[in-house]
């Protein structure tokens, strides 16, 4: 192997946040770092991935072992951290494992919350920075774009990103069982604490039409309502506003239940029994559990939501197994393409191909010419060989000259395509089929 891919990094499993934050790259500041990265000896192509859960440096070059040794130093140097401070936290993946790691990260198989969608967007953004800085080349280009389409394929073919794994999204998921759409629904937030505000934000992000905020101290309700562009509601007038609420989120507890069964019963009558979904996030509980016995009223407390979340986490883990097999197959396909990029096998293949053509044509002509004496035969052989050698001279020289330099992959790929050599290149996907949907990011 003349060339390799190396990935060095740390993530939420190997390093605590105090370490991660010290080596994180600020998003707008990637470009100078990328320039310094490709200036590192032996690095032909490079890219940096930095999120709150991971910092990773990928590089491609002729000597993988040297790369593996140089990258930790680069990472430490970029942030002025002594290299030994990172020692226990870094992992190094080489070649196939590096590719697999990238694919898994893109598909959110390596995330803290498996299946979360943000990582793919961050990766695309940061890869774009590497491409813009001229740090990435043909190999990383293919590798990253492949990882994006692997992520999409996994999202499409498995249920990995399907189910809610946070309290807020579990509430949204459950509400979809009750309501057709959320745009025309109104939510009432009882208690303007952090938890309530977060959940209300999530509901708004999922398209809930409007939110009302009630809090014991009205000023706080006004503050939170302003932040959410919601409507503040006085605490002592709850009974008047309750019938308007399709969703109720209770996040404040007290000595007794905030809402007793009769209050909800009255509200239901007033709203002509349109369904009401109550979510009790408070501990101790804020809503009377007997409320759930009313028709068209659905009450979930924090344990119920956590039950849903736990169930969904389990389901995601099962889907992740399916996703891993997809990753395996994709890594193999990429690797076939990658190894086909070598100069030596390309030269061999090129010679074989042209020689085969020559042989075939010579035999055809000999058959047409009829019986020839040995000298005439040899002349024809020599003539054709000379043509072949002259034609091949320039491409072979070019290939040899660029062996193990950054342009190698380009020449190899060009030769393979121009002369239609082997299946390695086409199987990993030629540029036309790299990804029809690659550009939609």
């Amino acid at each position, binding site marked *: 192997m003349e060339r390799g891919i190396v990935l060095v990094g740390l993530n939420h499993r190997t390093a605590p946040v105090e370490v991660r934050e010290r080596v994180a790259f600020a998003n707008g500041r990637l470009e100078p770092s990328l320039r310094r990265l490709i200036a590192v000896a032996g690095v032909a192509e490079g890219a940096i991935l930095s999120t709150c859960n991971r910092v990773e440096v990928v590089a491609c070059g002729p000597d993988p072992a040297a790369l593996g040794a140089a990258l930790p130093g680069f990472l430490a140097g970029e942030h002025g951290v002594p290299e030994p401070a990172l020692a226990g936290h870094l992992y190094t993946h080489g070649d196939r494992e590096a590719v697999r790691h990238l694919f898994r990260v893109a598909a959110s198989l390596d995330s803290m919350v498996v299946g979360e969608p943000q990582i793919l967007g961050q990766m695309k953004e940061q890869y774009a920075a590497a491409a813009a800085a001229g740090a990435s080349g043909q190999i990383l280009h293919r590798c990253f774009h492949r990882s994006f389409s692997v992520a999409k394929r996994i999202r499409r073919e498995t249920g990995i990103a399907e189910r809610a794994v946070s309290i807020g999204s579990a509430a949204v998921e459950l509400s979809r069982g009750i309501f057709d759409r959320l745009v025309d629904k109104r939510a009432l937030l009882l208690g303007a604490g952090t938890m309530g505000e977060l959940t209300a934000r999530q509901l708004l992000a999922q398209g809930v039409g409007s939110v009302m905020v009630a809090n014991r101290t009205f000023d706080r309700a006004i503050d939170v309502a302003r932040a959410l562009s919601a409507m503040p509601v006085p605490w002592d007038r709850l009974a008047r506003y309750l019938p308007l609420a399709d969703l109720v989120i209770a996040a404040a507890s007290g000595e007794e239940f905030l809402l007793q069964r009769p209050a909800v019963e009255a509200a239901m009558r007033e709203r002509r029994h349109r369904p009401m979904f109550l979510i009790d996030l408070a501990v101790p509980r804020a809503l009377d559990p007997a409320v759930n016995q009313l028709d068209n009223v659905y*009450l979930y407390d924090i344990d119920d939501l956590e039950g849903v979340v736990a*169930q969904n986490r389990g389901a995601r883990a099962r889907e992740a197994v399916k996703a891993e097999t997809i990753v395996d197959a994709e890594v193999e396909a990429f690797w076939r393409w990658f190894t086909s990029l070598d100069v030596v096998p390309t030269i061999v293949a090129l010679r074989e191909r042209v020689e085969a053509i020559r042989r075939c044509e010579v035999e055809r002509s000999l058959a047409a010419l009829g019986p020839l004496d040995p000298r005439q035969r040899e002349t024809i052989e020599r003539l054709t060989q000379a043509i072949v050698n002259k034609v091949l001279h320039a491409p072979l020289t070019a290939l040899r000259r660029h062996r193990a330099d950054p342009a190698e992959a380009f020449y190899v790929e060009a030769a393979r395509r121009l002369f239609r050599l082997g299946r390695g290149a086409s199987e990993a996907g030629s540029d036309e089929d790299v990804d029809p949907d690659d550009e939609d990011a």
Partner: protein
Amino acid sequence: MELGLLRLAIALYLAGTVAALVGIAVRQDLPRTLLPRLLWAGFVAHGLSIAVRSWTAGHLAVTTFDEALSFLALLLMAVFLVVQVRRPLVALGAVVSPLAFGLTLAADAVYHGARPLAPALDSAWLPVHVVLSVLGDAVFALAFSASLLYLVQERRLKARRAPAALRYLPSLETLDRVNYRCLVWGLILLTLGIVSGIVWAHTAWRFWSSEPKLVLSLVIWGIYVVLLQGRMTAGWRGRWAATLTIAGFAVIVLSLVGVNVLGLGNHGKAF
């Protein structure tokens, strides 16, 4: 020919049933895209079968018990296919397809072949009255399907331990809306069916009070009128509305089967 087409339709409805059940159990798109195609194909084969039979008989083939069952299945499928054009409701398909499958299978089981039309029924009123009434029944069958799903979904949500297998059921709001719309349309069609029947009977026999089917139809009509009234004024909805819809449909089935098995009145010969 017509029997072959009917059996093709039966097979396609069965395939549709399987596709719909798989469609609500797993997340793959294939069964969901397959479902409407299978059901459309079944519907076309089924419609052709009835057309052929009507052509040979010289009148709309709705005058024997098996013809009646088959016709009801056809219109049920028609109503469902129209409803799901605007919004694919795989779960509803999972109830409607087995219903259509069961009805056509029953029609095949009691198949008699064409019979000459009783002279009393030989009238332009026959298709009018039958299409209106059966279409009403089909719409109520769809309301029944939606209500059944409503009860399942409601139970799942009330139990608060959402079983994963049923996550692809439509929302309660959607199911309740299907129920309501079907209720309105079913009631309109049922009313027209009853009125056309009375007018027809009046012109044909000048005397119609001893028709048991009419009495049963009025009972059904009463149930649905009460339900619609409750929905519009008292805010009846959800579980209670679904339960009443199912009860009303049970009476429809009883009247359809009972009148035929006992051979009561003019409808005893067919409906």
